[in-house]
């Protein structure tokens, strides 16, 4: 299976910041809408490499990944199959899946 890799640091920004598009050109919404979601729609497996950046805020990560569930309608099980997170800083990888799980729980409660 071919893996499509996105390096946040090399292809997006070394200092991603903010949640919404209105917060700036390197926000979570920009990353999700312009990079991540299109890649997930077009590829069987997408690997997101989180290394190389100075760090991430919770707003950026939640909007980028939790937003896939909240906004783009993807499910946790779908993302578990299609999305791979690569990070030497395991904390960020754990946060990503926590945000996805929380978004899924919130969506389930609304139904």
């Amino acid at each position: 299976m071919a893996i499509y890799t996105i390096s946040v640091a090399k292809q997006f920004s070394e200092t991603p910041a903010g949640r919404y598009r209105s917060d700036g050109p390197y926000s979570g919404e920009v990353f999700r809408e312009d990079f991540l979601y299109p890649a997930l729609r077009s590829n069987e497996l997408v690997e997101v490499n989180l290394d190389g950046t100075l760090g991430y805020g919770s707003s950026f990560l939640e909007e980028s990944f939790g937003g896939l569930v909240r906004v783009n309608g993807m499910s946790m099980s779908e993302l578990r199959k299609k999305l791979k997170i690569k990070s030497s800083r395991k904390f960020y990888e754990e946060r990503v899946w926590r945000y996805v799980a929380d978004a899924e729980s919130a969506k389930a409660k609304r139904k």
Partner: protein
Amino acid sequence: MLLTRNRLRLSESDWGRKMDPIGWFLAIGWGVTAAGWLVTSLQANKRETRKEYRAEVTALEVSTDRLLEAYRRYLSETDEAKCEQARLQVHSDVNRVRRRVEGLEGAVGGEICRKFENLFEVLTGGDFESKSRRSGSGNNYARVVTAAEDLLECAETWFRNKYQA
């Protein structure tokens, strides 16, 4: 006078039972010395381990104080360039604190990681890095300080219970 087994006409089985008092005294002496060395060695190791953990907890406190200072500057700075520098410093210092926490996790347990997660969420959530944030809006600072205090209290309490109780 050298007392050999032959001269004493002892059988092999008699040799052990009839070891002279000096031999027993020496054997017990060596045994006590070895036990004393072992106890001293264990105590020295425990002291060294205590010192290492004390240093780690103190380093966590220093890193956390630095993080709070960077965050305070980020909230209060009106100059855009300086505010951006403070924002980058916050990210750098968050990672520094994270590394310290991960280093202590094995000894302290998962509780310290949960405290750090809370600090991370309170500090980098909300209007952090948002264009809508206004300089001088320090409402979140108190919450961040509380979360930082919880983190440090977790580490200090563990150290006190382990090494000073």
